[in-house]
């Protein structure tokens, strides 16, 4: 016969363990970001990636940059951003944004569009179209 109470206890104890593991991994990531920023004296900006089967839509929060000074490059499957930050922070640190994002699917390097508005850079990158074949429904 199944001991439900024991099973439940083990189940919740495992959930707690998983939560603690996630907390540790997250904290480690935050620490790495801050260490990198402080050691190299640049800012790793906040960003967001949305994707569908056609394209990637990447937005990056880079306030205080002149549009003309943004350097955005594609190196194979990597999107690389650099831009001087004109904001004088009280800490005196961080005078440049730097970010590299690896894209997991093949893309069309010629079909990239970008716009910069209110401190947010939005980039849409078309994915390489896969060959499609229509399936006949019987």
């Amino acid at each position, binding site marked *: 016969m199944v001991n439900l109470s024991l099973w439940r206890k083990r189940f919740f104890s495992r959930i707690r363990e998983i939560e603690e593991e996630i907390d540790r991994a*997250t904290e480690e990531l*935050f620490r790495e*970001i*801050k260490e990198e920023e402080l050691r190299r004296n640049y*800012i790793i*900006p*906040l*960003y*967001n990636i*949305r994707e569908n089967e056609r394209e990637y839509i990447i*937005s990056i*929060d880079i*306030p*205080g940059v002149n549009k003309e000074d943004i350097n955005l490059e594609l190196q194979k499957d990597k999107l690389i951003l650099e831009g001087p*930050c004109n*904001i004088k*922070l009280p800490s005196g640190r*961080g005078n440049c944004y730097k970010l590299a994002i690896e894209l997991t699917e093949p893309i069309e390097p010629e079909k990239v569009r970008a*716009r910069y*508005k*209110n*401190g*947010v850079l*939005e980039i849409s990158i078309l994915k390489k179209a896969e060959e499609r074949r229509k399936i006949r429904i019987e």
Partner: protein
Amino acid sequence: MDQDLINIVEDLPKGGARILLEGFPDVGLVGFISVSYMIEKLEMKEIGYIDSELLPPLVVINDSKVRNIIRLYHKDDIAALISEIPIPLPLIRPLGNSLIDWCKGKEIKEVISISGIAEPNRLDIDVPKVLAIASNKDFLDYLTHKIGIEKFDEGYLTGFKAELLKEGAKRNFNVALLLAQAHFNYPDPGAAAQMILSLSKLFDRKIDVTPLLKSAEMLKVQMRDLMRRTNENLIRLQKSKEMEVPPVYV
């Protein structure tokens, strides 16, 4: 049980405030930015803090002064609550419960929770909308009429604000949630400015948002660490659920 977990230390006299403004970190940090700005502009006084064993052992140092991470402010008929960290998940229910108990004990009549609602097309919106939802219809009608804003009529809400709203509805206490359209992942001072203009109408006080908009870029950079931690918390709260439409109920 909640009383054992939450310790609210303050010196607000009974009947000393009519409204509690809550601005914990959430979508676009709208609540945090708006309420912090109101505290500064209204010259509110720090009158206490909230502590719990469920909070990390963390303090803020300002001008060599040790300060708590969840702080309470007061001026005239308004009390305000802000937190320097996103509210940890296990604290959400007990804190929501204790806060309503505390408000009732202090004869506070209304809780107004300030937040953002994620808008995927935020980049194309110059003037974000502010929407309202409340724990009861009369309070909601009063707010939408007084401020001149729309009702949040359908959708999901999660996190501490949802808990407050739920408790308010359950205990027949006036709780409202004001939501400004905002960037999900980035601090959004533009959305906070629209929120402050709405609060100005509600409180019949003129609050100039020009300094906030002028320092928007600086704020965004300075608040990126808090936003990063808040984003992590929002993922665990299934915050993306707020962008879904509920099924039609019969």
